[in-house]
């Protein structure tokens, strides 16, 4: 049957992809843990929107997003210390994450406005997208799945920046808040896909 043959060919072609999820040949498996972290925190941001005022009953819940950025920044510092290659790229990401944690914490504590926090977040997401996307994507974009997956992470970061820009332009709407939260989930998923298709660091 034609359809069965085509599906079999499709499965065979997919099987030839460089898939070895979880095997890093001794390198530090950073991508999957950062991916799981962003997937987790993005899911909690969706829950925050669904829960409304109930979410703010606990102080630690309000500080979850800056806390997650702080942990991610500290983790990225560790990666840039341990990893032998791309040290400057990892260090740049670590600095962006740590500064992002600081500004988001200031916003959550009521010390600065959302606009002031976004004045840092938007350029940080754009620069971060370039660092983790085109600059970190080792290999030919046309033929290397690894390079394409890295680029996907960068594109997701730019998408998050565009959501923030729309928030500044049109004001806060629930749709934009949900877009940002699900975008953070997508960032996590894209990092998990990097690990699935490539593995190293």
């Amino acid at each position, binding site marked *: 049957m034609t359809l069965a043959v085509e599906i079999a060919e499709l499965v065979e072609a997919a099987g030839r992809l460089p898939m070895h999820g*979880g095997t890093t040949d001794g390198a530090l498996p950073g991508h999957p843990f950062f991916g*799981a972290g962003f997937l987790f925190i993005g899911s909690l941001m969706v829950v925050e929107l*669904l829960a*409304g*005022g109930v979410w703010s009953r606990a102080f630690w819940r309000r500080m979850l997003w800056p806390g997650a950025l702080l942990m991610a920044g500290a983790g990225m510092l560790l990666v840039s210390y341990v990893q032998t290659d791309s040290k400057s790229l990892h260090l740049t990401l670590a600095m962006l994450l740590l500064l992002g944690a600081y500004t988001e914490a200031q916003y959550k504590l009521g010390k600065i406005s959302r606009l002031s926090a976004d004045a840092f977040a938007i350029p940080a997401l754009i620069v971060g997208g370039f660092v983790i996307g085109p600059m970190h994507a080792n290999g030919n974009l046309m033929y290397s799945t690894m390079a394409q997956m890295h680029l996907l992470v960068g594109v997701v970061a730019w998408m998050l920046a565009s959501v923030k820009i729309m928030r500044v332009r049109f004001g806060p709407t629930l749709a934009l808040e949900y877009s940002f939260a699900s975008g953070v989930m997508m960032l996590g998923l894209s990092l998990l896909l990097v690990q699935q298709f490539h593995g190293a660091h």
Partner: protein
Amino acid sequence: MGVAHLSKQLRALLIGMLGPTLQAMGVVWDLLEHGVFARGEIGSLTLEHIVSGPAHLMMATGLALSAICIPIALQVAAASPEELARPEDISGDAELAGELRTAEAAK
């Protein structure tokens, strides 16, 4: 229907189901990897793969999310509509009411 107007039961259901949904997606991903795409590797699993495999981490994320979200889902189910409203929703509703009043007055 806007998300702001979801009933509290539906909100609680969505919050409670988010973790199990992620776990289910992780299971499907793992089954696809080991059952369809890389069947030959099932006999040579390593501890590294078990700990850092993307599908396994997605399942773990879903499990942690379930543990955190179930109490929140219960609180949401028991909350009043005022407690569920966010400050942005309240201001948005006020603006909408104002626009409706203006439209009524123009008739």
